[in-house]
């Protein structure tokens, strides 16, 4: 298509050139008439002398014919130019449309790619956030449970410490050794062997 357009354009330019040249020569002839050259003896042939009126009549006829020819050329040229410009416009429109479509497609593809990439990244971020949330929740649950266990253990120990302290305090007063003598002698009897080994070692 481009080649045809080029050839057509060259042809049109050529026609314009020819027409312009003819027009220029006619204009030159009209505004700067050439001096008549004396015929040379070798090429001399006898031409009948014409009347002035006849000459003017011929001139007018020639001018009219020339004008007619010029008008026809101009009309033809105009038509051709119009056709050419229409074709050029159509081609340019088509080219523009193609280019626009291509660019639009490329742009749409790019946008789509970016969109897909962004969606992918968003999904990743979302899944990472969800994972992080789950991990954090699990850690927090674990920490809370550990703290709960620690506090329960602490309470149990403190409570038992309090009970022990109470018992020791309550039983620490008015110890009666006399009442404990049987227990003391029984204890000595019970541990006699290890006591003996310790003393004799």
């Amino acid at each position: 298509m481009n080649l045809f357009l080029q050839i057509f354009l060259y042809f049109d330019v050529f026609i314009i050139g020819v027409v312009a040249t003819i027009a220029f020569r006619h204009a030159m002839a009209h505004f700067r008439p050439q001096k008549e050259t004396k015929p040379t003896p070798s090429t001399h042939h006898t031409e009948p002398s014409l009347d002035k009126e006849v000459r003017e009549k011929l001139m007018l006829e020639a001018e009219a014919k020339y004008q007619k020819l010029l008008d026809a050329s101009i009309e033809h040229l105009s038509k051709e130019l119009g056709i050419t410009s229409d074709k050029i416009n159509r081609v340019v429109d088509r080219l523009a449309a193609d280019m626009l479509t291509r660019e639009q497609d490329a742009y749409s593809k790019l946008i789509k790619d970016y969109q897909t990439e962004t969606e992918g990244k968003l999904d990743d971020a979302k899944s990472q956030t969800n994972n992080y949330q789950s991990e954090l929740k699990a850690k927090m649950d674990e920490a809370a449970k550990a703290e709960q266990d620690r506090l329960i253990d602490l309470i149990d120990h403190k409570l038992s410490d309090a009970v022990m302290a109470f018992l020791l305090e309550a039983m620490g007063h008015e110890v009666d050794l006399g009442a404990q003598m049987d227990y003391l002698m029984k204890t000595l009897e019970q541990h006699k062997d290890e006591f003996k080994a310790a003393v004799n070692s």
Partner: protein
Amino acid sequence: MKYDLPEDIISAEDLKGVIEELKDYQTYARHGSIKARVTKRAGGTKPELSRPSNELINLIVNNNKLALSDLDRLISSLEKMYSALPRIKITLAALPGAGIKKQMSVWVRKNITSNVLIDFSYNQSLLGGMVVVAGSHIYDWSLRKQIISVQPKLNELIANHV
């Protein structure tokens, strides 16, 4: 020479006291014998001896006569015993009376070893029972320890019921 300690000599302090008494008696006896040789009169006031000291002296008296040399030997042996005899420390929950001390020392000398010095002390926080230290061994047979040993069970009990 080794002597069996009288029952009243229980602790190292008691033995030390007896040794000091015997030394005073030794001094008296020595001065008295010198005076008797010089003035044919027994001189000075005879020091009062405790029962365990008397028991020990009776061991060395021969035909109602007490030889100074025997007394010297006795004191020397007692001093050696003071340094060499094994010592046991018994800590009770209250200050033990003489009867309790004697009962326990008799049992120890009968069942563990005949010659041993027993020191008594007290610590109210034991609540009952005793802590015995013999050489490098410590035996905690106190009531406090038994109560503390059941604390894990108490923890379990509280955990199950709270």
